[in-house]
């Protein structure tokens, strides 16, 4: 018991240290992530020209999901929460999944769900360049019609104590028709809207993926820290209980011995 407590305590410390780093990264990245996402949607909403294939909704049911999970377990509900969200979101669609993170990849394999590529299964070592090449690949597949929508499932880092799994629609960039009225403005596209969307969409996808990855990493460490903190406390409680029981048993044995000696001497 004592050694288990020491292990969980150590893991908590490691997670705390990593959390600080991941948290800084996530906080630095968040304005970029949010601005990029908001700007793209602003542009889409005020756009009147619907020629870009990225903008038109499709009827198909072939969806691509990017699943961002952790590489290791022992992080409370962190991994299972994103998986649950993915499965509930993807119900009724033909899904292809691109897993980032070993746990997610393993889970998909054991459930017989096809994954697009296995080359990004080590979440901790994925760089920005990797995110951009994933984005390019997804855009190409989307344009070819291999899938009709692209989503990312990640864990949003709200605070050290609270992380929520979320699913974000990346493609198609389809505007909400009700919001359209009153928001139409003319925008000058340099050199023209088709080229703009062609260049910006992969960038946007890559940027958002990277942002989601940073958020998820911070969430993973926070979830692990909380889980390990709870485990350490449980271990401590159990140790206290066991010590009490042990002392009682010892006391009982001593009392009995004394009673026997006294009884024998009489």
């Amino acid at each position, binding site marked *: 018991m004592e050694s288990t407590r020491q292990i969980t305590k150590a893991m908590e410390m490691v997670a705390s240290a990593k959390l600080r780093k991941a948290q800084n990264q996530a906080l630095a*990245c968040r304005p*970029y992530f949010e601005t*990029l996402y908001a700007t793209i949607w602003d542009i889409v909403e005020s756009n009147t020209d619907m020629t870009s294939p990225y903008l038109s909704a499709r009827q198909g049911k072939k969806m691509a999901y990017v699943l961002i999970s952790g590489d290791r377990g022992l992080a409370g509900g962190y991994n299972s929460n994103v998986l649950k969200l993915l499965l509930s979101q993807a119900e009724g669609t033909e899904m292809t999944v691109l897993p980032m993170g070993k746990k997610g990849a393993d889970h998909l394999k054991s459930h017989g769900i096809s994954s697009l590529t296995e080359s990004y299964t080590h979440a901790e070592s994925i760089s920005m360049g990797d995110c951009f090449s994933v984005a390019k690949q997804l855009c190409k597949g989307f344009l070819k019609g291999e899938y009709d929508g692209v989503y990312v499932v990640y864990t949003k880092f709200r605070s050290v104590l609270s992380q929520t799994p979320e699913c974000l629609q990346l493609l198609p960039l389809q505007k909400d028709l009700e919001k359209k009225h009153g928001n139409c403005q003319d*925008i000058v596209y340099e050199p023209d809207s088709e*080229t703009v969307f062609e260049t910006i969409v992969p960038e946007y996808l890559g940027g958002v993926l990277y942002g989601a990855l940073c958020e998820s990493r911070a969430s993973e460490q926070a979830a692990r820290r909380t889980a390990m903190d709870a485990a350490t406390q449980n271990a401590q409680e159990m140790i206290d209980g066991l010590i009490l029981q042990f002392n009682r048993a010892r006391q009982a044995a001593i009392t009995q011995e004394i009673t026997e000696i006294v009884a024998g001497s009489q």
Partner: protein
Amino acid sequence: MNTFALMIVTPDGVQFDGQAEELVVRTTTGDMGILAGHINCVAPLGMGMATVMVDGQKRYGACIGGMVSVLNGQVKLVPTTFEWADKIDLPRAKASGQRAKDVLADKSSTDTDLRLAEARLKRALIRQSVAQYK
């Protein structure tokens, strides 16, 4: 001079958030200058130097990839990488450029290698030239 709200955000954090008088960025089709009251517009960015005028003072930065958008007077510059001239790691840029040159000179390099090296060399050269403006 009239000012406008400018925000420069990169994956490494917010590089600038405040009022500026003028912004010049290199888009994929050439330099584009933005002053206050600019029409709504969007353009993808190329690789090049960005100039920001704040309080009559010019600041220079190496700005690579991403996009610039003007919506209702709010200007957002969202590049993939952005470094102010005084933050550029010159030795690193030089070393990176040299490595890229080595790859380009190597006859056995594959097409992908060449393409990557070319982009790296371009970035290194831009950083080096912007760093002179500190």
